[in-house]
């Protein structure tokens, strides 16, 4: 689309690493958008308006990628030529799969019992598990350069995200029946 030479990290003046100062990222994002956003070019020539839209779109894409732990990790691996195989590699350690099943059962029980508090608790557990994986990503990517390990963490995070979505949907469904 646009031939911006740098990758997303470069665009924000950040080193290509998993650990990112999110506050700094936010600040850079706002500064960049202040320069390129279509609001700055509403009265400009059509060629500039088009270019502005393309650049602002690119900045949004880069920002969303770096903001999300899983997208950021996936992107870093991609920059290093590693595919996370999220759609093809479904092998998981047995313990991890057991935990998934336990969570799913807990969701079913809590939903059947209309136990919103119970579901909230599960959500907290999920968040905790995700934070663990994120810490692992940091050491795998930034310290050990163990890309295979990092790819596995990304796949796990994907699983965890799906479970989290299910819990949130269950809470929402119970909410709407209030």
């Amino acid at each position, binding site marked *: *689309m646009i031939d*911006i030479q740098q990758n997303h990290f470069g*665009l*924000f*003046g950040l080193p290509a690493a998993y650990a990112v100062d999110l506050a700094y990222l*936010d600040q*850079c994002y*706002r*500064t*960049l*958008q*202040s*320069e*390129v*956003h*279509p*609001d*700055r070019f*509403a*009265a*400009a*020539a*059509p*060629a*500039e308006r*088009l*270019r*502005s*839209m393309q*650049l*602002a*779109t690119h900045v*949004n*894409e880069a*920002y*969303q990628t770096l903001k999300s732990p899983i997208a950021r990790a996936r992107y870093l691996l991609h920059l290093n030529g590693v595919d996370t195989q999220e759609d093809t590699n479904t092998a998981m350690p047995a313990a991890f799969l057991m935990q998934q099943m336990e969570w799913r059962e807990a969701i079913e029980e809590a939903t059947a019992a209309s136990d919103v508090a119970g579901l909230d608790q599960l959500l907290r557990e999920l968040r905790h598990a995700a934070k663990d994986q994120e810490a692992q990503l940091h050491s795998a990517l930034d310290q050990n350069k163990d890309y295979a390990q990092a790819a596995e963490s990304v796949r796990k995070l994907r699983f965890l995200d799906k479970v989290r979505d299910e819990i*949130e949907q269950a809470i*929402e469904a119970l*909410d*709407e029946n209030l």
Partner: protein
Amino acid sequence: MALLQISEPGHSAAPHQHRLAVGIDLGTTNSLVATVRSGMSVVLHDEQGRALLPSVVHYLANGGAEVGYAAQTQQSRDPHNTIVSAKRFMGRGVHDIPDLGHYPYRFVDAPGMLQLSTVAGVKSPVEISAEILQVLKTRAEKSLGGELTGVVITVPAYFDEAQRQATKDAAQLAGLNVLRLLNEPTAAAVAYGLDNASEGVFVVYDLGGGTFDVSILRLSRGVFEVLATNGDSALGGDDFDRRVFCWVLEQAKLPPIGPEDTRLLLTKAREAKEQLTDHADTRITCVLASGELVDLTLTTQIFNELTQPLVSKTLAPTRKALRDARIGIEEVQGVVMVGGATRMPQIQHAVAEFFQQEPLTNLDPDKVVALGAAIQANVLAGNKNDNELLLLDVIPLSLGLETMGGLTEKVIPRNSTIPVARAQDFTTFKDGQTAMSIHVAQGERELVSECRSLARFELRGIPPMVAGAARIRVTFQVDADGLLSVSAREQTKGVEAHVVVKPSYGLSDDEIASMLQSGFSHAQDDKQARALREAQVEAERLLEAIAAALDKDGALLDEAELTALQQPMELLRVLAAGNDARAITHGIESLNRASETFAARRMDASVRKALAGHTLDELNL
């Protein structure tokens, strides 16, 4: 009053450069136009000093139309031809409207958008809205003493593509240059002059006549970032009126009544609702056309009971938006109330209880949206020359493609910050296939039949290949107005596929052209003169924009490039002084093409400058 200060010493534009820009709130019940004058955002009044323009259009047998208060007085007398709340029909088909029978209008089931049969002919909601916009345009130009450079028109945040496009079409019909379609809650947030010193998360609760929006925004040093938005584009104050209306019918044990009496009772119901804002009870009395007398007392308690389900209906989208934004109630700094319906004490209590804080109500809820739109119009037109105000809005509903089995696959998720683009790769099914069809829909449901169909895109000109060999990348781009455009490119051969858009709703360019031609009751000019003037205005704008760009960044071009740009500029100047609209349009196209390289270079330099600024910041930390 917390309004943004606009001019700064030494930074205001020279008088002859000040561009006339206004903000328009095209509301379900009332419409307004506002502008920034001497640094203050103000609503413009009509000749009788009234700020609000009732969004009512009354069609006459001679083909003309009355708009506003004059039309409103005709509601009960001529209900079939007095259209109220046309906004509810924008971008909607007959099957989209629940309880069609409640309205006294003669609906016509037309493909894409319903129409209304009136004594002045069959009218589209787009034409009806254009009548209202035309009145506001005239009011603004008279008040400001000149032609408008551009307008910002507000739309409910929860309006989908069809509804937004219809709004833009109405503006085009009225001869307005739309600088931006702005979401109403965002406009309100701006007007509350959450000025540069404030930081934090704010919620805008906007209950209008026919639509409900709730938006969660983060404000940080002049940047308004929408985190999530939700709502119901078919829920508003009108529905509260209807509950009272139904109660009256029941209580007074009335036999079935005609359209005139329906309109009369609905008006009484609205008045009663408004009375209850400041009184514990109110009397509803009137004589129907049949001679029946209605004399009832409505108490606040009964009213609250009747309308409690509606209030609850606003809280579900509110919870959803908070979840999508991942914001807890304790993180909300302030809740802004927008829309006349938020005057109801019941609403204020419900919101205060939900958020555990008193909502902000100091600005007139009827005017706040127009005021905010005017502030942004002033910035977009180029009058305000700094980088303080930036609105980062979102797309309210997911965009998806129809896949096998009538399912939707989401391509752009809801609450994505706009502008946003996504590319999706497709391939061919049969050997030698040169075309394919893609169906785009908007909504959160799994079945495409439960989403809003936006368009079917036909890609033609795919180079014939073995089945599965082609790599067609289709790019979906949503712009800053929340409108979608599609482009497609066959990757292996690098050929741009020709995309033909068949919108499922709305007006084609031909339909708009013919509406413009068949004349439009308030337009005094003949169509040729209008086409010429529009071409001239567009040429002037383009020339001005490029001249300003050269002023700032002319150094980016070398001698030869500068001449190559100045030639088409000069040519266009000459053409614009003439009478040939078509030649002017060609000249505009040539100049646009000629300026592309310069535009790209300016933007890239701008981005590099922004990044360089970072490195400096880093060093200073």
